[in-house]
């Protein structure tokens, strides 16, 4: 058995506030293997993002442990084992597109030659080489998010953490970026943990889909996506694609505890 890249063991998260304690996550145990693309889907407020942020050591779990590449999440962060893509692109407005992609290389103190050569190659990978000298505001939302993906790949991380990266985009851009993301993952052999609201997006991208229950989020079900690779527009037309979408949707609906209807609408737009 190979060691899993990411391993959750009984992870829970409770947020303390003046209004009292809110239990966001409860008893999450899951192992993600190398090269997997695992999506986390669930109703709003079920702690999907928190789960991702626990892996990235941006918040601490209240219970349980996370091992990343056989290390603590903190050590993995200090070793710069992962690249993260947030809901918004989080580009620095005073840096050009190229300089934004360069940032992780500078922070990691990589040699000058690498700092010069790698960013243009990464921009080529996301199809933005002509925009290297532009400032972020000159780009559309979809292009900005592609820059942030290129930046996340800068240090060739073994893990990509993505927190609803395409949530703010229109359906067309989202589908195109889904396709690009799969190519990028295939080329870089990165393991991906992907939080989304969209059922179709999860089915298209993933090898496995983790369905979380409403708060406190726990794993309701894990759907293995047995669609053939490489995936393309044709994949979206396969009967099996629709079956899987239906399966995920039903697991989201079945939960008797859920009162939050909002989670349905983005996923429901197939």
């Amino acid at each position, binding site marked *: 058995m190979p060691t899993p890249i990411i391993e959750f063991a009984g992870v829970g998260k409770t947020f303390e506030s003046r209004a009292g304690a809110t239990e966001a996550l409860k008893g999450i145990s899951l192992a993600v293997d190398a090269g997997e693309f695992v999506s986390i889907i669930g109703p709003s407020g079920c702690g999907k993002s928190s789960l991702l942020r626990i892996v*990235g050591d*941006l918040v601490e779990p209240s219970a349980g442990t996370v091992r990343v590449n056989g290390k603590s999440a903190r050590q993995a*962060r*200090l*070793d*710069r084992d*992962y690249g*993260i893509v*947030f809901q*918004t692109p*989080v580009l*620095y*407005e*005073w840096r050009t597109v190229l300089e934004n992609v360069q*940032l*992780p290389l*500078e*922070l*990691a103190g990589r040699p000058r030659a690498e700092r010069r050569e790698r960013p243009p190659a990464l921009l080529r990978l996301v199809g933005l080489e002509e925009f290297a000298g532009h*400032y972020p*505001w*000159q780009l559309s939302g979809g292009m900005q998010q592609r820059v942030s993906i290129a930046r996340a790949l800068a*240090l060739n991380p073994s893990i990509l953490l993505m927190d609803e990266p395409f949530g703010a985009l229109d359906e067309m851009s989202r589908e195109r970026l889904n396709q690009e993301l799969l190519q990028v993952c295939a080329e870089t052999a990165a393991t991906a943990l992907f939080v989304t609201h969209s059922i179709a997006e999860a089915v298209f991208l993933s090898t496995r889909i983790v369905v979380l229950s409403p708060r406190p989020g726990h794993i309701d079900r894990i759907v293995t996506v047995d669609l053939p690779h490489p995936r393309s527009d044709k994949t979206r037309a396969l009967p099996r694609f629709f079956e899987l979408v239906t399966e995920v949707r039903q697991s989201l609906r079945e939960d008797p505890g859920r009162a939050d209807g909002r989670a349905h609408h983005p996923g429901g737009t197939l």
Partner: protein
Amino acid sequence: MSRVREYAPAALVLVLGLVLWEAVVVAFSIEFYLLPAPHVIVASLQETYPVLVEAGLYTFTEAILGYALGCGGGILAAMVASQSPAFAGLVLPYAVASASVPIIALAPLAIVWFGVEQGSKIAIVVLMTFFPTFVSTLRGLLSVAPQSLELMRSYAASEQQIFWKLRLPSSLPMTFTALRACATLAMIGAVVSEFFGGPVKSLGVYIKSTASLFQTRQAWSAILVACALGLLFYFAVALVERLVMPWHFERREG
């Protein structure tokens, strides 16, 4: 071409204002010592030109030196204070409150402390420009978007890297807002402090002494020189701002 179109209305207003001024003085036959007509001021400017250039440079030097020390000190102090948010929280309210203190009221005392020459004027300008620059820069350094900080954290960036690559560049717009305002303050501070005493070859003393002798033409031409130097200073700072933050301006114009 677009620049011309942009500034044409303002230039037109200036010309119309001058024409109106000239017309009012002539129409109501206002005594020249109450309000001289623009052409009289220009004529006087031509006569007293050498004196005014010397006085202007003298005062301008005070403004620039005071500005450099005050703003430079303000930026450095803010950089130091930002290292400890607790300390920053302690001094910030006092720095903000200092904005409502009429620092110019200290000008007579500054003469006692630093002498009647340029030193006392520079000291007043330093005090006038230090606090606004300090407050704006400190606020800029401390108010960084949480997500931008999180990105730094995810890359295990050191505090130093966070400071130089995130806090400092993101504080620039606020710092420059203060630097532009202080350019104006510096010139005001220098001229007004000279009213309380100084050598004859300074704009403030020249304005005060000519006005008290009812030589209002000379006073007005000195005021004109003070205005021109103030504007020059302001636009020089604005130009530097553009060069330092190209991303900021291309966006506004784009």
